[in-house]
């Protein structure tokens, strides 16, 4: 399905990559005045904003119409539930919500919520542009085209992810 989406975009003469939208949005807000990286014809990238807009609609439809209220759970494994319990995050198998409780406005003003939402967002935005792509651009599009740079980027994604999950999470989560 995801490959099909990539194919449709290639078929329309485009490239599949969601994080490029951050650059487009920066440029649209006038960031071109500050750095040449944002001086490009962002109007020509408007199609990608439409994909992002569509993704938002898709999220709305999926959660409101294609999912029953009691069904809105992530079916994670019992092993993961046990790992979470060890860290003090008690969830029950079959009852795990799609997003944890720290994705809420009140939690934004707690240390954990702030680190996850604000620092997490910053790292994702900075890293995606530094690496020239995110999961969709490198892991899906890049690996599909057998691009060595994308493989390096994906190795980087996983190294970063493993360090965060195994070394940094225990410090505060």
């Amino acid at each position: 399905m995801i490959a099909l989406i990539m194919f449709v975009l290639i078929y329309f003469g485009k490239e599949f990559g969601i994080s490029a939208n951050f650059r487009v949005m920066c440029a649209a807000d006038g960031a071109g005045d500050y750095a040449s990286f944002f001086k490009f014809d962002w109007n020509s990238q408007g199609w990608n904003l439409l994909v992002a807009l569509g993704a938002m609609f898709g999220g709305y439809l999926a959660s409101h119409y294609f999912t029953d209220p009691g069904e809105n759970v992530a079916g994670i494994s019992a092993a993961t539930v046990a790992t979470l319990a060890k860290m003090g995050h008690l969830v029950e198998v079959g009852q795990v919500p799609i997003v944890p409780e720290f994705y809420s406005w009140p939690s934004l003003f707690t240390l954990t919520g702030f680190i996850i939402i604000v620092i997490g967002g910053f790292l994702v935005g900075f890293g995606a542009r530094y690496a020239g792509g995110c999961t969709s651009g490198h892991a899906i599009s890049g690996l599909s085209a057998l691009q060595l740079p994308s493989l390096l980027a994906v190795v980087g994604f996983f190294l970063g992810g493993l360090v965060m999950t195994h070394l940094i999470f225990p410090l505060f989560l």
Partner: protein
Amino acid sequence: MSKFIIVGIIFGVTLYKAEAVSWYRIFEMFHFQSFHMYGIILSAVVAGIVIVQLIKRGRIRSVDGQQIEINDKDLSIPRYLIGGFIFGLGWALAGVCPGPMFILLGSGVTVLIVFLSAAMFGTFLYGLVRDKLPH
């Protein structure tokens, strides 16, 4: 124009129903406790490789009949490894990458607008300092 919105909607519904938008699924993936996320990525890449090879052999043309060219990326090691590493830190921390961020925002997790702003600020800062970074 609207064809891109439709592509986005299909993308959004697919990733939502596949639970790829879930923080817990990412957490589980980095603990190697389920094949779920690897299955999603692997199946997309395998199907993608087949499609790209068909395109490269000229079997598939674009919607206006043109030969499709797929650009090679320039090879540079620090850029992809360091940039990827930073992205990976954020990906595991937030449990969402840019696609799911838009999808969850649409599903009603409005606080992600703060995440989006932070990601834009990160991108902006990268634009400011990019000449000073190893690429």
